């Protein structure tokens, strides 16, 4: 082989190496005119079901649909890095008005979509002035889930405070029952009235977000507040403390061990009958079912705050708003809208959402669907009973940071390394701080 050959081969080899390296950085997305759908899903409990549904859509329509799910508690983080890529998500979720503020520039008008048209109540859609930008696709309800078997067993005790679960209709009753159950834990075969109030990130949202919604709800109701206020007063923090105290004293777990308890811990304690009460929502059913519980074992109580217990219902709302990425190409946006339309109108889509994922949706197309989820049944019964549904005001909480600081203060209070004043501060003073930081 002569020298020129060697040189030529050398140069080609180097060029090929360089080019393949560069090609990997380039746009590897398909350029077909059909468009591309990439949905970044917020709900880890429905990750597999979404993937399956996307595959069915691809089989039926030939359009490629990619579904990625962010790990619990990392949605904003994942979305931020995904959005910066050339293959950005075409469908993404925001959690309400506060989440929308971050992603406003990325939201497309959805008023022409079937999803918007099929909403039973179009007022619940998320709007940026008059532009429809987010459609809630799951309505969820949370409260205190209870194990009917254990409560029945308790009511049969000679000195039981109530004779049936229906009699638990106020904070005082609930507290009396929980305290008494804790006392009779051995006879009932439980370890505590409530599951562990874990502050691992897989569980702390139950308190820093969902439980904290209760005092916010009553305050906003009393002051007629409907939009995110600049400051709050913390009028009902006393009630908040009462409930939280009950969670951590009548519990399966020592308060000093709460910091590392996970959502799975609470779930399995409840499913294995070690606790009678479990604050969580309709979405918990699939996990409880997997852990071996039956539908007829479960009921749900409102989180009685001791303010207006007679009319307090379960907490119902949505923090799952679907948005279309306005910065995606026209074809991609169109493909995404088509996919979403199919999801809520086709039989396959309806079945997947209602049965496989167990969601309650706000769409007319789902009217004929009945749910197997006993928690959804409880929620429907509750809303038909004439009680006032507690709304989801936590979507107005000023930032994730606010929630995190509240959660950490609650944990410090629970394990005895901090005091309640710090919680009040994190709740009231920090609201203003975080509001200012984002406005």
């Amino acid at each position, binding site marked *: 082989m002569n020298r020129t050959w060697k040189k030529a081969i*050398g*140069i080609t080899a*180097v060029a090929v*190496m*360089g080019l393949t*390296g*560069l090609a990997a*950085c380039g746009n590897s997305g398909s350029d077909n005119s059909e468009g591309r759908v990439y949905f970044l899903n917020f709900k880890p409990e429905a990750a597999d079901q979404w993937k399956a549904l996307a595959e069915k859509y691809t089989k039926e329509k030939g359009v490629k649909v990619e579904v990625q799910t962010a790990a619990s508690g*990392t949605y*904003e*983080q994942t979305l*931020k890095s995904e*959005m*910066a890529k050339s293959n950005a998500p075409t469908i993404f979720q925001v959690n309400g008005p506060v989440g929308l*503020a*971050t*992603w406003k*520039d990325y939201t497309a008008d959805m008023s022409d979509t079937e999803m918007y048209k099929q909403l039973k109540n179009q007022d619940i859609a998320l709007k940026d002035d008059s532009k429809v930008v987010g459609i809630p696709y799951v309505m969820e309800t949370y409260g205190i889930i209870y194990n009917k078997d254990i409560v029945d067993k308790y009511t049969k005790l000679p000195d039981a405070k109530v004779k049936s679960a229906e009699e638990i209709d106020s904070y005082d009753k609930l507290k009396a029952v929980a305290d008494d159950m804790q006392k009779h834990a051995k006879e009932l075969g439980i370890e505590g009235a409530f599951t562990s109030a874990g*502050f691992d*990130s897989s569980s702390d949202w139950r308190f820093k977000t969902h439980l904290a919604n209760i005092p916010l709800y009553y305050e906003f109701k009393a002051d007629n507040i409907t939009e995110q206020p600049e400051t709050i007063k913390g009028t009902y923090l006393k009630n908040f403390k009462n409930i939280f105290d009950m969670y951590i004293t009548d519990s399966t777990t*020592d308060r*000093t*061990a709460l*910091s*590392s308890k996970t959502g799975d811990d609470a779930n399995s304690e409840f499913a294995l009958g070690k606790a009678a009460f479990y604050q969580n929502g309709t979405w918990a059913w699939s996990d409880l079912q997997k852990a071996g519980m039956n539908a007829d074992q479960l009921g749900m109580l409102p989180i009685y705050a001791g303010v207006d217990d007679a009319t307090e219902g379960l907490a119902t709302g949505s923090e799952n708003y679907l948005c279309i990425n306005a910065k995606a190409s026209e074809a991609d946006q169109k493909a995404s809208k088509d996919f979403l339309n199919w999801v809520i109108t086709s039989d396959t889509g309806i079945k997947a959402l209602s049965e496989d994922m167990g969601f309650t949706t706000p769409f007319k197309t789902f009217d004929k669907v009945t749910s197997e989820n006993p928690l959804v049944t409880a929620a429907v019964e509750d809303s038909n009973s004439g009680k006032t549904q507690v709304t989801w005001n936590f979507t107005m909480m000023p*930032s*994730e*940071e606010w929630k*995190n600081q509240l959660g*950490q*203060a609650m*944990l*410090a209070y629970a*394990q005895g*390394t*901090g005091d309640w004043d710090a919680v009040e501060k994190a709740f009231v003073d920090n609201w203003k701080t975080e509001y200012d*930081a*984002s406005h």
Partner: protein
Amino acid sequence: MISMAGKAIRKWWALFVLPTFVAFIIGFIVPFVYGVYLSFCKFTTVTDAKFVGFSNYAKAIKDPVFLHSLLFSTLLTIVTTIIINVIAFAVAYMLTKAIKGSNVFRSVFFLPNLIGGIILGYIWLLLLNGVLAHWSKSLTFDAKYGFWGLVILVCWQQIGYMMIIYIAGMQSLPTDVLEAASVDGANSRQTMFRVIIPLMMPSITVCSFLTVTNGFKLYDQNLALTAGNPMKMSEGLALNITNTFYARTGFEGVGQAKAVLFFILVAVVALLQNKLTTSKEVAA
């Protein structure tokens, strides 16, 4: 003497350097420069940024949590650098003596280093929580627990690696100097401090450089072990930066500014440390 290969390399070096150089530019220089630029911007995703000047830096310096994490990282670095280097040196010294099965011991000490930080973090989380469960506590109960937990983890992981470097250094110690020392009647302590340690300074430079920078850059282990809980009191610098960038809306630029400050800090500390230890190096 210049061989054929040497000639070819002189003529063609640029071509052979090119692939790595391109990779270095794409993977390091560009992101770095872009990162510095972003630290002066307000942005949500890195692709659309608006220039805002030094306000991000002002916010970063005023953040008490950032300052606390600086303190936390500094303490952690000091403690781990001392413990790791002392123990690694001692273990290396032991294993260069004729001990039966010293190869097996070397492998055993080195193995933890092959496990990724996240996995190590979770393993130690389980272990330490299991122990603390006796007192109904857990690792995130108090920042002190998290701190010492991290110290244990980091030492366990890095001692083996530093040990290998020290062993290599010890094996190349000139034996004539050691013999001369013993002939002259130096006792074992004098041999250690007057002969071995001065001759080992190059290895000590390398190891202390690695442990100092690793201490500041610690991320995976921090994330897996405590994730900064409780109250962000066990949050190191690297973790604080990611949390600022990702977890707070509107604080992306501040996170970026912190990252630039972090880079300057680590660079300065590493250079100082390098200067300090190299100045102690001697020739045999």
